[in-house]
């Protein structure tokens, strides 16, 4: 990022003798300072004696179009910036300054300042928010994952300790109950670790789109059979509506099966008992192929929808825990869909139910 900045400074220094706003002179052969600044994608300001002489489009967008002609402190209020940019300060230059909260509370910008040889200064802003947000997400994820793993572990340790007590051992009913809790919590941990591992596997492969032709109807039937064989009484409510004429999709069979398992599992857990869970396939917009899972339940309030696929995001924490959710199901679904270059569509009506559709590209015919 510093290199284009340096070349811009060089170009502006060379052109600094031709005062830019010269309406009388004919169009110069060389681009004027203003044209050069405008060509830059990052926000760039030209400041003369503390006043903004020019601001390119990106800068006007970030700081407002009113800033041209104003004091530079009107545009950038940051104390460190004020010290370096006002005319009374010593020659600008030196290390870039980190600005927090320019344009939005959590945004971060790096400000580079260079003197242009006359009384003008070039201010270049580089957006650093994204790197910061990614870093924060990573830290959050590690913190969340450790917390999620600790919860079942604490229960296991606690119950093992109690079982060690002779009084508890003497009562077979209590002992059985405690062992049950330990068993359930150990399985919860197991599921969580499995989910974390599949997430990282899918992420590792995300740049390689799967190419195998997969018959979606077959995957649905297979998942349906597995669900039906499980002991859950709710599995009787699962119905399939498969369009047999569909062409195969380009996909990874194991991952599509995992995706469907997660969606059906959610629908069974959060739909009202006794109401149907419908798995259907069909043709989506364009050449895409649609796979939908629909339930009739309480639905999800609209404010939760944008965050549903975040890791460990739960609409109802207590409920998710009681039905044994890991908080990663939809995050895995999202990553699988992304790897397939597909689209995930969640529609929900509070009080009526939720419909989750996945659009997948068809397999290329060889």
């Amino acid at each position: 990022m510093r290199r284009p900045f340096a070349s811009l400074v060089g170009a502006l220094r060379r052109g600094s003798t031709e005062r830019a706003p010269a309406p009388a002179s004919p169009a110069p052969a060389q681009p004027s300072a203003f044209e050069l600044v405008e060509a830059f994608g990052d926000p760039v300001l030209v400041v003369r004696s503390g006043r903004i002489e020019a601001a390119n489009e990106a800068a006007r967008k970030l700081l407002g179009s009113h800033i041209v002609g104003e004091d530079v402190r009107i545009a950038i209020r940051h104390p460190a910036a004020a010290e370096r940019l006002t005319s009374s300060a010593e020659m600008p230059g030196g290390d870039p300054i980190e600005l927090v909260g320019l344009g939005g509370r959590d945004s971060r910008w790096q400000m580079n300042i260079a003197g242009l040889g006359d009384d003008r200064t070039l201010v270049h802003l580089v957006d650093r928010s994204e790197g910061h947000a990614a870093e924060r997400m990573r830290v959050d994820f590690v913190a969340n994952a450790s917390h999620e793993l600790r919860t079942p572990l604490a229960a296991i340790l606690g119950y093992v300790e109690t079982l060690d007590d002779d009084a508890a051992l003497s009562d077979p009913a209590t002992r059985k109950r405690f062992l049950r809790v330990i068993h359930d919590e150990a399985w919860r941990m197991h599921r969580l670790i499995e989910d974390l591992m599949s997430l990282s596997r899918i992420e590792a492969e995300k740049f390689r789109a799967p190419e195998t032709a997969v018959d979606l109807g077959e995957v649905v039937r297979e998942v349906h059979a597995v669900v039906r064989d499980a002991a859950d009484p709710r599995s009787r409510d699962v119905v399939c509506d498969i369009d047999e004429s569909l062409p195969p999709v380009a996909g990874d069979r194991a991952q599509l099966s995992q995706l469907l398992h997660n969606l059906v599992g959610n629908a069974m857990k959060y739909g009202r008992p006794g109401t149907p869970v419908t798995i259907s396939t069909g043709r989506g917009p364009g050449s895409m192929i649609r796979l939908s899972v629909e339930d009739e339940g309480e639905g999800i309030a609209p404010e939760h929808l944008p965050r549903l696929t975040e890791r460990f995001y739960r609409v109802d924490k207590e409920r998710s825990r009681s039905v044994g959710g890991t908080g990663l199901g939809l995050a895995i679904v999202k990553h699988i869909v992304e790897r397939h270059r597909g689209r995930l569509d969640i529609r929900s009506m509070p009080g009526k139910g939720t419909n989750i559709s996945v659009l997948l590209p068809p397999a290329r015919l060889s």
Partner: protein
Amino acid sequence: MTDHTLKAFDDEIVELRGLISEMGGRAESAIDRAVEALSRRDLDLARTVVAEDKRIDELEIAIERLAVQIMTLRAPMADDLRETVAALKIAGVIERIGDYAKNIAKRVPQISRSSKIEALSVLPAMAELASDMLRDVLNAFAARDWQAAVEVSNRDRAVDDFYNSIFRTLLTFMMENPATIGEAAHLLFIAKNLERIGDHATNVAEMVYFAARGEYMPDRERGEPAV
């Protein structure tokens, strides 16, 4: 902006607005850092905030001087006069905001590192509301955007509600845990300071409105007044 025949006059108005903006930026950062010092119990940062309040005071004096100079030497009319008068008043208000931030920073050493008072964990959220108001009103000032100013003044109610709920929580806490009354009282003052910052941001909004439109901001519906 309007161009003046006299370039020096134009320069002075621009300089005046620049000074206000710088002062506002410093007050904004003082609030953010005072609250950060509080939530991390960072005594060094708290001391820096206290020390740097001097700069805000100096800026107020500089603004006053320049505003008086403009009024006496240039005899400004209409919007220029309003702008100058508003600048003078805004500078006074921002100076108060700086003092509140300093006051929060001064209380940081009084809150023990192991304090378990629940209000401590919600104060940063309240501070965010108040400092967002200040940031947005300064943006409104920079852009001479009276609509944005009205929008900011409507948000004061949320800060007041926040304060009232913290007040009740702390009061209950004090009754149940008399040993921590000292600490809880400091937290109460901090919450009050933040509430006042919200009020003052509204005052700035009224000045921005006045400078831009030449009339006073119409009275808005007020929520439950702060205790």
